[in-house]
């Protein structure tokens, strides 16, 4: 792979990273997970087609289970009982972009009268290599941890609005000292991450989830049902 592409990719990640603020811990836990099947279906977002299914019945899960059982003689694909509880009530979204199929888990939680989604990445594999056994993985070139993004879900007829938390607003409030939440920031590498616990994240959104300042149009993705 040539250096220019590396650079382009680096730029892509790091530019977007600057506008996206993610959380180390999930918003949703196995004891607070909620379901709302209105999220399931095929959706259009800009040039993307996104398919959202319940995880236990998704093709992703079936493929995974098959390969795990064949190779490792384990009974479950999940690491723990808690994960099993959580993911059994979660959804998987998949979409294809530039020759890669991306899978992301979407877990829901109801806080007050609002529904929130926790989105975490699971897998990205080449479309032409569905089983991807040869280590040709995205993000295997370096060391990463995965993090979670949080969005408020608003259903409007045949549309869902994913209102992501406005990262710039949060960063600004943190910089001014008006926001108290566990947060890590490294200035040298422009890395930042919310490290608040799941419980604290839930309390925070239960209290401020209705505050319109937390959201803006640029960070809202409207999915239209196909």
């Amino acid at each position, binding site marked *: 792979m040539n250096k220019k592409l590396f650079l382009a990719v680096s730029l892509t990640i790091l530019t977007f990273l600057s506008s996206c603020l993610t959380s180390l811990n999930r918003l949703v836990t196995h004891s607070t997970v909620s379901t709302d099947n209105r999220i399931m279906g095929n959706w259009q977002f800009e040039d993307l087609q996104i398919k959202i299914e319940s995880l236990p019945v998704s093709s992703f899960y079936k493929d995974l289970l098959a390969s795990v059982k064949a190779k490792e003689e384990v009974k479950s694909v999940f690491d723990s009982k808690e994960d099993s509880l959580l993911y059994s009530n979660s959804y998987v979204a998949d979409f294809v972009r530039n020759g890669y199929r991306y899978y992301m888990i979407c877990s829901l939680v109801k806080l007050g009268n609002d529904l929130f989604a926790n989105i975490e990445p699971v897998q990205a594999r080449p479309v032409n290599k569905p089983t991807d056994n040869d280590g040709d993985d995205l993000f295997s070139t370096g060391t990463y941890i995965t993090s979670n993004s949080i969005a408020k879900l608003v259903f409007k007829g045949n549309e869902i609005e994913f209102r992501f938390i406005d990262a710039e607003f949060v960063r600004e409030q943190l910089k001014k*000292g*008006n*926001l*108290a*939440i566990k947060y890590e920031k490294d200035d040298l590498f422009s890395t930042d991450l919310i490290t608040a616990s799941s419980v604290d994240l839930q309390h925070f959104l239960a209290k401020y989830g209705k505050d319109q300042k937390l959201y803006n149009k640029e960070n809202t993705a409207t999915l239209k049902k196909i």
Partner: protein
Amino acid sequence: MFTGKINRNNRNVRIMQHILFIFLVFFILLNTFKFNSPPAPVDYVYTTLFLATVLPVVYLHLYWLLPKLRSKPFLVSYIIPLALITAAAIWVNIQLFDHWSANLFPGFYFISYFTWWEISLFFIILILLTTLLKLSKSWFLVNQLQRELLEKEKQRVQEELKALKAQVNPHFFFNTLNSIYSMSLDKDERLPATVLQLSELMRYFLYQSNEDLVPLAKEIEVLKDYIALQRIRSDEKLDIKTVIEGDAEQQKIAPLLLIPFLENSFKHGVKGDVGATFIDLKISLNGNSLNFLLENNKGTVDVVEKNDNKGLGLANVKRRLDLLYPARHHLIIQDQGKDFIVNLQLQL
């Protein structure tokens, strides 16, 4: 007006102490709650709100509940009210941080980062700390009052002792002066020595008796001078024996402690006139143990004393012994019909 000014000053000092304490607690909590260094504006708001829920409970406890600590029933008057107000304040704390502060402080974003149990611990620790401070303050106050009381008691005792010392019968001096007057008329050759002895005696009574302790040798010398002066009055018929054993040079005694016994023995020995009487005085010293043995005849008629002075000398010395030598003396006064015996054992 002056008392009012003192009270106002004390109140101002107390208010300053409270303000200082609150600032100290605020500073400690601020540094506990802050997410980063230095504390951000949201940390100040957080700490202020937290204190606003804790302080009312602390002061209610200090000024309303703590005085009821000894009331009965303890459970109803202290424990239950304390638990109730603390629980209510914790509930307010949680509601404030999780809900109400969004409207009260719209530009700030925070939640309660503690569980109800952790919040309870903050409350318990502050209540305990303030209680300990108040009790220590009370303890110091009690100690101070005790010290003042002891000081006052000491002063009272010293005043009493002073007064008791001053109760030495002045009649002896008047009688001796009368004798001196008679001697001067008779041009008695014993006059100069007598005047000198009286002078020494008066000097002792006036000056040295103001001291807490005097050399025992001096006290014994005074006894001898007293005997010598009494002898003048009694003429040759008085049989006085004086035996001093042991080394009195190194010991000290409270002044005018032994004279009253001697005075008493002369009073009892007078029978209208000093007749065939005897006084046997024996003072023996063994280390710091003094044994004072005084035996005299008991007259058929006591020296007439005014009613208000009757018995005052012995009562006086007994009281002084109790004050100055508590549990260090043993006094036996025996009225054996014809004889009167005083035996005083004293640890000097």
